[in-house]
């Protein structure tokens, strides 16, 4: 785990995500970032390097690092949005468009702290990617299409209609999370402040420590 800054809060995220994001940041203008597939052999090499804790090879490009981020997201046990909590996200995704962000903020707070931190960190980064959509063509819609299947529990149905509705729902939710990620660190900070006021003993530092 490493400390990263999100708004005024310091949050903890798995080191691999920070390493990979640093690589992606070197070429944020690459067309189809997070959409286009990388070379499989390269991706495998990156995973092996990270597993061993070695330094990243120099010739890794943004596309492959982005693919590996998605791969790691899929491999998080219990998903970034765990099954039991996903139900709340689905409900939030169905509320009136003007209320979605507020509903989602509440849902995000239901996440286990580690997931919450990673969520805040990733959504902030994905938002940064969409700011370059003039070059990389990854608008929040496109980012949401490629990110959503990797953060929600896998959903399968033989009914095409049901399958499509579910895809659209997770898309709406992810898009909203990416577009309004700025509120997340604020919500997080507000929560931490409240806890601190409630109990002076609970400093944000020890609060995070107990989860790491």
């Amino acid at each position, binding site marked *: 785990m490493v400390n990263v800054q999100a708004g005024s809060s310091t949050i903890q995220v798995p080191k691999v995500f920070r390493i990979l994001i640093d690589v992606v940041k070197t070429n944020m203008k690459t067309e189809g970032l997070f959409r286009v597939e990388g070379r499989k052999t390269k991706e495998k090499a990156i995973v092996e390097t990270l597993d061993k804790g070695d330094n990243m090879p120099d010739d890794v490009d943004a596309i492959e690092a982005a693919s590996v981020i998605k791969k790691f997201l899929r491999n998080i046990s219990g998903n970034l949005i765990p099954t039991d909590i996903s139900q709340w996200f689905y409900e939030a995704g169905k509320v009136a468009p003007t209320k979605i962000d507020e509903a989602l903020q509440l849902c995000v707070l239901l996440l286990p702290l580690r997931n919450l931190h990673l969520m805040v960190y990733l959504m902030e980064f994905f938002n940064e990617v969409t700011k370059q959509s003039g070059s990389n063509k990854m608008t929040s819609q496109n980012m949401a299409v490629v990110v959503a299947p990797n953060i929600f529990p896998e959903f399968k149905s033989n009914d095409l209609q049901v*399958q499509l509705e579910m895809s659209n729902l997770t898309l709406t939710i992810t898009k909203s999370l990416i577009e309004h990620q700025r509120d997340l660190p604020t919500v997080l900070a507000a929560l931490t402040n409240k806890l601190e006021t409630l109990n002076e003993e609970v400093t944000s530092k020890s609060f995070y420590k107990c989860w790491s």
Partner: protein
Amino acid sequence: MITLSPKNPNHNLKKYKLVFLGEQSVGKTSMITRFMYDSFDPNYQATIGIDFLSKTIYFHDRTVRLQLWDTAGQERFRSLIPSYIRDSQVAVIVYDITNLNSFELTTRWIEDVRSERGNQVVVVLVGNKVDLESCREVPTEKAEKLAKELDVLFIETSAKCSYNVKQLFKRIAEALPDLDPDRHEDNNWLQEVTLETKPKKNNQKDDNNKDYCFC
């Protein structure tokens, strides 16, 4: 003169399912959009899950209904795809001629199709985006060779410039089971196109229409 097949005495619509496969952003949706509406959406849009469209076509005095299944190239949806392959008579495997990786991964898609359908399927390998010739990474000969080895049809297209897309569907129709292309000489469906050496430029005025790439 209309010849009715004994199987279809009432001249019922024969239905065929076509599934479009390939990596992300190779142009599966664009190819379908070009065929269905003869248009090109310059907006770069990732497909959500799986989508399908139908089109009735007239071919060799026969009316057939084509169901085009557009799949998202995303990893997570891969597990869903075999069930769509299983129901399909045609698999269109698309790669981007400016992206060698997307070409190399076509063999995986073809293997998936063969393992589900064996030889009971028409497989077409399609190299799209020939309008970006200057960025080409996959030589035509290389793809031709692979297609021959794997015994699949092969064509290069540009969905953006409407180059060879009709030809692609004509080739598919000719290869469809129960549609004998030699039965009639006249071809009312899809005029034969004379292939130009250079694909036509799209006249649409749009920034995204420039011939450029990031290589």
